[in-house]
């Protein structure tokens, strides 16, 4: 009864619907205005969009460091971690809408694709370069757009060969083969013993591309010439790489690899279904917790050498600052702080090989002395190149990668297409892509 009285009685007259709406609207406006004023004048804040590391501990370290920075410098810093496959979409949305995080993780060629949306960070990239004994080739490849630094090289997820030492010993190999020809011989022996090898040939944006660009380059293949315009994939060198890949598939792999995504090889290796695969240190990490007995017999090797040398392709990340950011100065200061040995070593130290530095200084980081099996990973950055090599990273090279032009060229050969035919298809696809540039 009391309630009814309140509705229709005195309170009802004092606070009519119109009055209520008026008061609410006024309060909302006042609050919004307050927020607006605060956002213009208050303490600076920084938002950083980055990938969610497969190793949570590394993200936790970054969160802790952000808190510490806020405490020390009074600048609010917040990391937003998202799935690696969502990073392009989120970046695209920020670039298009002109709103979003202040700092973005440029993924591989991200700084080249979004260079107009990013500010010039040459001042901090150059001073950090001087301080940290210079940048590696791959660091320069991803950060420098023309002559301007658009991203500070941050780190690389080193992809190498992960293999079973016990099974390789069983077929007479104490050391991992150093050439692709030797690898083929050993792989056949391994399969004959019931231990096939496996390199992803499905739509594994990471492992598929990262296993096949190194093979392609090592045999002397190139998508385009150094000018970045003339398609040059149709060559005897490419044919040799395709023939080698087909033989590996027929003699030493199972058909599964054609469907492998980025996590398939981890699962296969941990299930002891493959003896050799191309991967980051994530398998070794997973074994630490779930299969210590396998960790004992797992080791890493550099990609073998081919007639044209030794190459690798791993995802390298940079930190870029959006043009629309209101806290560009603070962003530069934070990136410089984050790259200092105290913070950086703590971060890669937790990763134990999951991330390697792009500055030469970090080649001697204490993390590499933690475990002799990480020694190989330490060396990877110096062999890494980006799609499009020998030309600098570009939009056509990125498009060719996301369209799996190279991986599909190898996959078609493995499914039975002739070498000339599969290269011709890849050549046509590349010509279509490069013609748009």
């Amino acid at each position, binding site marked *: 009864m009391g309630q009814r009285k309140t509705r229709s009685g005195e309170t009802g007259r004092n606070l009519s619907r119109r009055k209520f709406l008026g008061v609410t609207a006024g309060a909302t406006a006042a609050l919004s205005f307050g927020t607006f004023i605060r956002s213009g004048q208050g303490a600076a804040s920084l938002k950083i969009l980055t990938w969610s590391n497969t190793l949570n501990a590394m993200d936790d370290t970054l969160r802790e460091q952000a808190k510490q920075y806020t405490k020390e410098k009074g600048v609010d810093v917040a990391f937003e971690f998202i799935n690696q496959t969502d990073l392009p979409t989120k970046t695209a949305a920020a670039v298009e809408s002109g709103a979003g995080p202040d700092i973005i993780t440029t993924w591989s060629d991200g700084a080249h694709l979004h260079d107009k949306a990013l500010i010039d960070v040459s001042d901090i990239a150059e001073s950090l370069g001087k301080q940290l004994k210079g940048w590696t080739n791959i660091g320069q490849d991803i950060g420098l757009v023309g002559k301007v630094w658009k991203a500070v090289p941050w780190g690389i997820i080193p992809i190498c060969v992960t293999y079973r030492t016990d099974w390789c010993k069983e077929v007479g190999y104490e050391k991992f083969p150093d050439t692709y020809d030797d690898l083929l011989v050993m792989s056949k022996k391994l399969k004959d013993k019931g231990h096939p090898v496996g390199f992803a040939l499905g739509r594994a944006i990471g492992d598929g591309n990262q296993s096949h660009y190194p093979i392609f380059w090592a045999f002397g293949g190139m998508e385009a010439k150094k000018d970045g315009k003339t398609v040059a994939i149709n060559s005897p060198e490419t044919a040799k790489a395709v023939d080698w890949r087909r033989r590996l598939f027929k003699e030493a792999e199972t058909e599964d690899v054609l*469907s492998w995504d980025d996590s398939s090889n981890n699962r296969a290796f941990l299930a002891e279904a493959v003896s050799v695969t191309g991967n980051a240190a994530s398998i070794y990490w997973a074994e630490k917790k779930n299969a210590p007995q396998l960790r004992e017999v797992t080791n890493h090797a550099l990609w073998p050498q081919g007639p044209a040398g030794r190459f690798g392709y791993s995802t390298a990340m940079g930190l870029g600052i959006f043009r629309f950011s209101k806290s560009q100065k603070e962003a530069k200061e934070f990136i410089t702080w984050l790259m200092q040995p105290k913070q950086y070593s703590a971060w890669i130290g937790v990763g134990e090989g999951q991330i390697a530095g792009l500055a030469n200084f970090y080649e001697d980081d204490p993390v590499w002395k933690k475990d002799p099996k990480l020694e190989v990973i330490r060396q990877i950055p110096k062999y890494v190149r980006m799609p499009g090599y020998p030309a600098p990273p570009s939009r056509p090279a990125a498009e060719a990668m996301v369209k799996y032009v190279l991986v599909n060229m190898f996959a078609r050969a493995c499914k039975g297409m002739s070498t000339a035919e599969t290269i011709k298809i890849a050549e046509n696809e590349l010509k*279509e892509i490069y013609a748009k540039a």
Partner: protein
Amino acid sequence: MASTANVESTQARPWLSRFRKPEALTGYFLISPAVFLMLVLLAYPFVLAVWISLTDRVLGEPGKFIWLGNFLKLLQDSLFLQTVWNSFVYTISTVFLKMLLGVILALLLNQDIPCRNLVRGLILMPWIVPTSLSVLTWLWMFDSLFSVVNYILLGAGLISKKVPWLGDPLWAMVSVIIVNTWRGLPFFAVSFLAGLMTIPRELYEAAEVDGALRFRQFWHITLPLLQPVIAVVVLFSTIWTFADFQIVYILTHGGPINATQIFATMAYDVALVAGRIGEGSAISLFLFPALLVVIILMLKYLRRE
């Protein structure tokens, strides 16, 4: 009578005068939020996408207006032509299968079976569960190493070696078709069931009196009366399947060797990963004119019915 007079008087005046009537004004006022939402959430993004598809825009840059340049270029793109083919194979097969199985399932559910309501509810499960979650389960079921489907088929002696579900171009297409059919079937079955329940019982009784067998009853009574429902469901499903993204993206990413690349997955790769949003928009809008014609024809047909 009063209302007739009202309508006549409104018609006699110029149309603007309708706005003077307070109740008409209230009417427009009341539908304005809906119109506003339609404009902001549907019309604006659509018009923007059409505009972008007519430019050579790349992410972060304004781009030039190039008329139908993107669409003409796509017609010469071998990967795109394969995508068009894949999209048609995917859509036609899944819609046909869903229609066929949907009719059968609806006829079964319309019978007096035990726990009928429970079964009808359970049938809806694939439609209710979030697609991304259920497709992840399918991904595990088709896994190259641990496929439970292969395990069962091998165990039952139906196959002698593992089927490369997602590893072979043909099997990959079969896999995405199976999953799409599984996911969409409840919508078809339940819609058809609703249609079946509206068919008057007397028609069947009359047919029985005339000596028509079950198949003839189905052919001459059920099917013709179900036709409008089938038309609407097929129309919706065709549009949804042409625009499908999740199933293919999660299961195959368009692979292997582009065997399952469809409009939405290719548009995603080109627009968001490679940054060519003009071309990406053109890919996703490529079929719009054709679909529009189909929609208009279907709606006209339905109105006539």
